[in-house]
């Protein structure tokens, strides 16, 4: 455990992945919070001010202008909406959800990384000035982001590890509620299918909690995870949770691999370089 901690604390790598996370999380944030923050929706000065500030900071975050400050401010504002408006102010229906918390954690951790060094206006300006830093930096918060995603799966599976869910009953009830009626779903064999799905859901979530950390897990479990989240998104109202979780799978790829793919797709030249060999970096 101590060795893992030391390794995480000393982790340095490509910041292209961090830039991608910064941009994507900013866009997801708009999808999640726009309806809560627009002036046509909220009319008191405090909510309007927070909503306006959140839009401004997240726009700066997406384009990467004053990236680190913008991302930090965005994280602080998200914390304000979740804990302030949501938990203390009683607006739990609007602000306190699993996906809003996960978004807050993800943005907060990206704020702790050098998110200005890649895919940003900041980098462009630095290149123009001739003082651009290498696209490398400390990535210890990325280890925490991976941990958070894994824990979402683990504790989600833990919550479902009971007779009520594994028997298929809870999924049947939820599907009746959204897609069916007191007679069940009007699809022959649906109850049996939902029972199988229930067991499969718990098994997949436990597997994802561990497997995402390994190359074999990314290869075989990620596609299943994408299908799993797509099915959830189509069946029940989950807000941005499905797409956010799938987007955060990006955090599990080795940063150097992400940079190589990005350069290849964009038609770039040599790698950003660094002190680790490719194989050593890929092992992360």
């Amino acid at each position, binding site marked *: 455990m101590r060795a893992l*901690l030391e390794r*995480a*604390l000393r982790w340095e790598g490509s910041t292209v992945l961090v830039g991608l996370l910064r941009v994507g999380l900013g866009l997801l944030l708009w999808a999640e919070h726009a309806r809560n923050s627009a002036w046509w929706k909220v009319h008191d000065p405090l909510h309007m001010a927070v909503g306006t500030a959140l839009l401004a900071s997240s726009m700066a975050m997406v384009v990467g202008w004053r990236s680190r400050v913008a991302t930090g401010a965005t994280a602080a504002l998200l914390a304000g909406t979740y*804990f302030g408006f949501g*938990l203390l102010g009683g607006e739990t229906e609007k602000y*306190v959800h*699993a996906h809003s*918390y996960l978004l807050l*954690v993800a943005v907060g*951790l990206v704020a*702790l990384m050098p998110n200005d060094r890649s895919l940003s206006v900041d980098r462009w300006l630095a290149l123009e000035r001739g003082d651009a830093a290498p696209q490398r930096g*400390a990535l*210890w918060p990325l*280890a*925490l982001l991976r*941990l*958070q995603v894994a*824990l*979402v799966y*683990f*504790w*989600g599976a*833990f*919550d479902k590890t*009971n*007779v*009520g*869910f594994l*028997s*298929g*009953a*809870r999924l*049947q*009830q*939820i599907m*009746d*509620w*959204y897609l*069916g*009626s*007191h*007679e*069940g779903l*009007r699809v022959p064999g649906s109850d049996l299918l939902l029972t199988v799905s229930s067991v499969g859901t718990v098994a997949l979530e436990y597997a994802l909690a561990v497997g995402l950390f390994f190359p074999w897990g990314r290869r075989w479990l990620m596609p299943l995870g994408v299908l799993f989240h797509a099915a959830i998104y189509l069946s*029940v109202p*989950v807000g941005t*949770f499905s797409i956010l979780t799938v987007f955060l799978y990006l955090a599990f790829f080795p940063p150097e691999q992400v940079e190589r793919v990005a350069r290849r797709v964009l038609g770039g030249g040599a790698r950003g370089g660094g002190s680790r060999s490719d194989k050593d970096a890929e092992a992360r």
Partner: protein
Amino acid sequence: MSRRVAFVAIALVMLLGPFARQVLGINATALREWRMYGTRADDSCRVLFERRVGEDWQRVSRWDVLDLAADGWPKRGLRIITSPRAADRHGRAICEALGDGASVRYRLRCADLRAGWDDWTVSGDLCR
């Protein structure tokens, strides 16, 4: 040192928050639990109506008899039954639709969050 402290502190909140809420049952809302749809639809019942045909009871769909989807996807209040009392009321509507001489009953079981479903109960003839 500050990096180490921050890392450990954040990791502990991530690890212990759900443990405190989901295992120990501590109701500290500042800590996040990862339960999704844990209590949604927890008051819904599965209700299957039956009509007497000779000596047998055969399934009859309230959805079809009352044409619930005539005006598009029916609202949840029409689709979901949450109590035996509501089932009685809907059963009597089926009796009216089927006309004189019909015999209708239901088999009902309701949601139980941990056990899944309650046991089935069978009503009497709703048309009498």
